[in-house]
């Protein structure tokens, strides 16, 4: 089997390299029939697409890092992660509307919102979602440790109930959280005359901060050390007299809170509506399948690949075919699975 697997892999790797080279040449020099044309002629739109990809990757990373943290330590596939995302968004939305009001006839505008009225709802939403996740883990998952499929099914049941209850309480109309007025501006990058939305750069900044924070936490603190040890060998860690259940609880709290925080940013950047939860569950799954489940670096790389591929595919396909861009998400996934079934940074369990 190994010879066959090896040939399968090298074929996949060759396809991956050829496709990337072709994509690069196409974007830089050819790009026939696209709205922007080749990047050497239109640096501005190329740069904007690149930034769109990077900032989208930031949001993917924030949400998926929570997913991969929980999975890496506990082998729990939290199918309610998308529902947690949506719940976080709705909580922040309701808090902001409660404090600032419903706004004028056009709804709440960013000019009516100051920094505090965005950050405090965001933090409260993240903490509440963290506790929701923690209680789900304590009530339903803790005593099923090791039964991966059963735990996944339990979180699916919770996701169904949460999604339906959110539809009942928050309605089916798409709504969005207002950015603070200070952020809702354009930033002059002084490169190729690009004016870029500050909010997207803010998302990217938060993502980098979350990534750094998680990295420092996992590398430098005692809890982080226990988590890294637990990812490798849970039984050994608990045999050494460490309270692994407490570590599980902390990881589940942080992982769910990251989904909630992602929901607040996603709800400000785009909007909140039924169905958003399944899109974000999909995004998190793709990021961790590409990057390798349980790996923080893998989540970062997976988020970058997904963000860049989706944005460049929809911008640089010929205009008549832009709606085929979803195919590229599948191709990305297919190539990674063909070359590395456990993801780029994945290790056998």
């Amino acid at each position, binding site marked *: 089997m190994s010879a066959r697997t090896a040939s399968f892999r090298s074929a996949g790797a060759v396809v991956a390299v050829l496709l990337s080279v072709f994509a690069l040449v196409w974007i830089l020099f050819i790009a026939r029939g696209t709205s922007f044309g080749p990047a050497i002629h239109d640096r501005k739109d190329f740069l904007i697409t690149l930034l769109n990809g990077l900032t989208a990757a930031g949001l993917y990373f924030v949400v998926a890092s929570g997913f991969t943290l929980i999975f890496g330590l506990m082998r729990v596939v939290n199918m309610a992660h998308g529902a947690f995302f949506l719940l976080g968004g709705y909580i922040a939305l309701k808090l902001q509307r409660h404090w600032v009001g419903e706004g004028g006839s056009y709804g709440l505008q960013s000019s009516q919102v100051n920094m505090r009225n965005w950050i405090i709802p965001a933090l409260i939403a993240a903490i509440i979602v963290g506790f929701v996740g923690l209680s789900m883990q304590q009530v*339903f998952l803790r005593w099923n440790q090791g039964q991966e499929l059963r735990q996944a099914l339990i979180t699916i049941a919770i996701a169904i109930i949460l999604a339906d209850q959110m539809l009942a309480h928050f309605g089916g109309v798409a709504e969005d959280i207002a950015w603070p007025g200070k952020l809702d501006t354009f930033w002059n990058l002084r490169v190729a005359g690009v004016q870029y939305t500050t909010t997207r750069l803010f998302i990217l900044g938060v993502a980098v901060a979350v990534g750094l924070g998680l990295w420092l936490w996992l590398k430098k603190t005692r809890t982080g050390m226990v988590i890294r040890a637990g990812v490798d060998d849970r039984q050994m860690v608990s045999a050494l007299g460490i309270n692994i259940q407490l570590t599980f609880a902390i990881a589940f709290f942080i992982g769910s809170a990251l989904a909630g925080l992602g929901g607040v940013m996603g709800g400000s950047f785009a909007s909140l509506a039924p169905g958003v939860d*399944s899109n974000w*569950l999909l995004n998190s799954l793709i990021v961790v399948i590409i990057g390798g489940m349980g790996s923080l670096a893998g989540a970062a790389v997976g988020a970058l690949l997904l963000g860049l591929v989706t944005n460049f595919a929809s911008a640089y396909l010929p205009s008549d075919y832009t709606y085929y861009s979803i195919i590229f998400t*599948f191709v990305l996934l297919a190539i990674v699975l063909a070359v590395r079934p456990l993801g780029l940074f994945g290790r056998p369990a």
Partner: protein
Amino acid sequence: MTQRSLIERVVGAAILVVALIAPLLFNTYWVSALLTQMLLLGIVAASLIFLSAYGGMVSFAQVAIYGIAGFVFGNVVTNGNTKGLNLGWSPWLGVLLAIGIATLVGVLFGALASRSFGIYFLMITLTFGVIANLFFGQVTDFSGFGGISGIPAPGLIGRVDAHPNRLYYVALGTSIVVFLLLKYVVRTPFGLSLQGVRDDPVRMSSLGYNVTLHRTLAFGFAAFVAALGGVLFVWWNGHIDPASIDLSAMIDVLVIAVIGGLYRVEAAWLGAFVFVVLNNYSQRISFVGPRFHTLIGLVFLAIVLVSPNGLIGLWERFLDLVASGRSRGGPAEPIAEIPAGSDA
């Protein structure tokens, strides 16, 4: 024959007789709306249970395959007045293409996912399913958001509202054929080695069996079964849109399989029956009203927590009480013991 299997055979025969004379026993609404839907959902769930019970693969992609069959049929047979290609070809050619293309996509999905095991397999097939859903939502050449309407069933079956019993019997016949086919396949040498792969992929691999190929072929075969359900679905519904195969539809089929029981093929139709009846009657319960999905979520949660082997597991426990407590010699292991996360 043990007492247990005697009881099971008598009950099975009774259910079959009731199903055969159902149009005499139930009103048209029950036959055309509930029982036909139960049968076609049961076929899709049966393909999932086959993969889970005999291949150790819990798949989310069955609904995508069923949707692909439905969309292909719709594109091929419709003639103007709707989205899609509107090829206007013969419905039997449509059936052939629908099942052929859906099976091929199934083989492709299977080839990509089959080197992953347990919970990874579940996640990968979930992403395939959601991507298929988004594909049909975005690509207006084949469907677009509104979907394909006015899909006719072949003339032999006719319009469902005019001849409700014809489609019911076709669905019943297909269900019986699918059930017997699945029962047969698991007894063939291929089915037996598939079960070996389920139990210990490493050992099977060192015995010289191609693990990946077995799992890919099993996935392709299950895709064929799911495609049958998809064709019946568009005949029954006359319409298919991306919402027919979205995440909640995928979860619905998984719920059906789990409520029934993930380790016996019969459980698919049992789960589908409970699901369809709950779906239909929960609207009338005042405190449930439109909150059907909360109710089904709670039922699902209760089943997973209390009886991981589903209703068929409860039934077997009941049989154990009635008959002398001989240990069950079933072909598959209960869900709680499916090895997950192991890697070849």
